[in-house]
């Protein structure tokens, strides 16, 4: 196990270096003046341009610039936002909100998605299964901002069940609607993955053995089928974390949830390039760490993984 953890950690290093380099390269190796390009149509005051140039060491050779940027990341220095607030301070304020939102969304996903997938898989070809397939295909096809606006219009404006915007200091129940919207993006995939996995497990020899030992279906389904079907689903939730982060950017923007996503959303909308770069870097780092953790969790859940080279 220790060997596996070490190997996995070592593998993460080149990817970490590669992704940060790629983001940096995309921004600062483009033709023209990268600082002016970052502000798009806007013409920022010369002091701001000068501050950004200084911040990113643009007078030094490219590789030195990148190494200084990387060094900053390791010290927790992600730069300064457009208004002058350090990005790490903004993160400290907004991250807990996004974490709450993501946690509620994941609960919806895990409980709802796995339950629907399990029933579909156990009653393959039935009416429930067929309608679940249709609903999941429709959900996959709806872009998250369409889902967000539709939910906002129906449940917020028409029915008045939820507040349409959350704002800062809002009670946690205001996060329910945005979290449900966020969950729809991955819901269909979780349902279908669980379904496929349940069908495959249901055909395994150990399930037949359990049945022939005289165990009731009520015991076989949770203990033998569900537990063994969940491994690919758990990994998928991690892989899908990237979709969740993009979704959070759009959902938090639309519902005005004061999280990391909304900060990025507003920076994009206002064309504040340097802030966008900082927050995308942060999100990619979070994504890498989550995937690393889940790979380790995966090895705990499924001992076969540890021995595969």
């Amino acid at each position: 196990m220790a060997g596996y953890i070490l190997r996995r950690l070592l593998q993460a290093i080149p990817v970490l270096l590669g992704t940060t380099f790629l983001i940096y390269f995309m921004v600062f190796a483009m033709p023209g003046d990268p600082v002016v390009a970052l502000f798009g149509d806007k013409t920022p005051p010369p002091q701001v341009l000068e501050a950004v140039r200084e911040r990113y060491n643009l007078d030094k050779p490219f590789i030195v610039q990148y190494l200084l940027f990387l060094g900053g990341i390791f010290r927790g220095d992600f730069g300064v936002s457009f208004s002058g607030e350090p990005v790490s301070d903004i993160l400290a304020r907004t991250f807990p909100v996004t974490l709450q939102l993501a946690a509620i969304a994941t609960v919806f996903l895990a409980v709802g998605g796995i339950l629907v997938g399990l029933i579909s898989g156990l009653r393959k070809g039935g009416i429930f299964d067929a309608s679940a397939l249709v609903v999941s295909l429709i959900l996959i096809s709806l872009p998250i901002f369409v889902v967000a606006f539709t939910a906002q219009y129906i449940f917020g404006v028409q029915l008045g069940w939820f507040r349409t915007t959350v704002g800062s200091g809002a009670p946690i129940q205001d996060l329910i609607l945005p979290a449900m919207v966020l969950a729809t993006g991955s819901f269909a995939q979780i349902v279908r993955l669980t379904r496929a996995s349940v069908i495959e497990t249901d055909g395994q020899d150990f399930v037949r053995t359990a049945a022939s030992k005289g165990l009731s279906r009520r015991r076989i389904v949770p203990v033998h089928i569900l537990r063994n079907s969940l491994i690919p689903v758990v990994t998928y939730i991690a892989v899908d974390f990237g979709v969740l982060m993009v979704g959070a950017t759009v959902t938090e923007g639309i519902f005005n949830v004061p999280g990391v996503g909304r900060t990025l959303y507003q920076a994009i909308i206002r064309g504040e390039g340097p802030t966008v770069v900082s927050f995308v870097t942060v999100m990619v780092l979070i994504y890498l760490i989550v995937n690393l953790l889940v790979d380790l969790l995966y090895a705990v859940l499924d001992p076969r993984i540890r021995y595969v080279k």
Partner: protein
Amino acid sequence: MSSNTRSTQQHYVAPVEETPLVAIDAVKAEGKPSNLWRDAWADVRRRPMFWISAAIILLVVVVALFPGLFTQVPPNNDCQLSNSNAGPAPGHPLGFTKQGCDIYSRIIHGTSTSLSVGLIVTVLVAVLGILFGAFAGFYGGWVDSVLSRLGDIFFSIPYILAAVVVMSVLSKYASIWTIALAIGIFAWPATARVLRAEILRVKNSDFVMAATALGVSRFRILLRHVLPNSIAPVIVITTISLASAIVAEATLSFLGVGLPSSIMSWGNDISQAQRDLRTAPQTLILPSIALSVTVLSFIMLGEVVRDALDPKARARR
């Protein structure tokens, strides 16, 4: 003792005349040869979901190629602010946008934008994914290590976030081509991974060994024998990536880092309409429906093709 028993044991010899061996050995030459593609077509043909999605896709393609067949109203030039957010009127079946432009005409003319971005991204993803996946899977060793780690790096940046960064820098050059490039450059690793896994499975087959024994060059084996036999999952993922690319373009345009407002795009129209959700929801909902139905039809097609090409998926049905 064992050798003793065996030598004295009576052997059962089947009477040869009873089983007509000739019939077993004979190949039915006049019968249709069975292969993956023929079976898949036979399977697909029977499913209504295939015909529904194919019909919608055909319609979308015709609309994109010949928008003039469906509307005579210009999407941009004829806008009158007095019609702002107005309901349907004669000649304008779906009403007007905030700028007083005809919604129906804008939806019709936005079709080609979505479809072009989807197609360019798909071609890019297929080419990059096949190149990286095929070389990594077939040659293995250090080639695989280098290409796969490179793929990991691109895979670790969610492609919409990457495209947001690229498009923020390239905002002055925003066009259908730049946005497709920004999405495609980061969307290929999924295809490469699928193809690599499939090639690893196929390259140990007997027919590959037979080709090697016959002296066929490695590259030719890859091109003529391995690749055609491992391309099926790539076709499935490519169909679905077309749908994802359309969604990605709309999302970027919605965020304001996509296409300039001079280019007709469903994402732009949805983005413009968001502030009027309470007063004029139709200006937001109608382009959303066009977007969702188009995406749905490609997802459905991918679904049907996946079921047909993957025998395992067929068993699960």
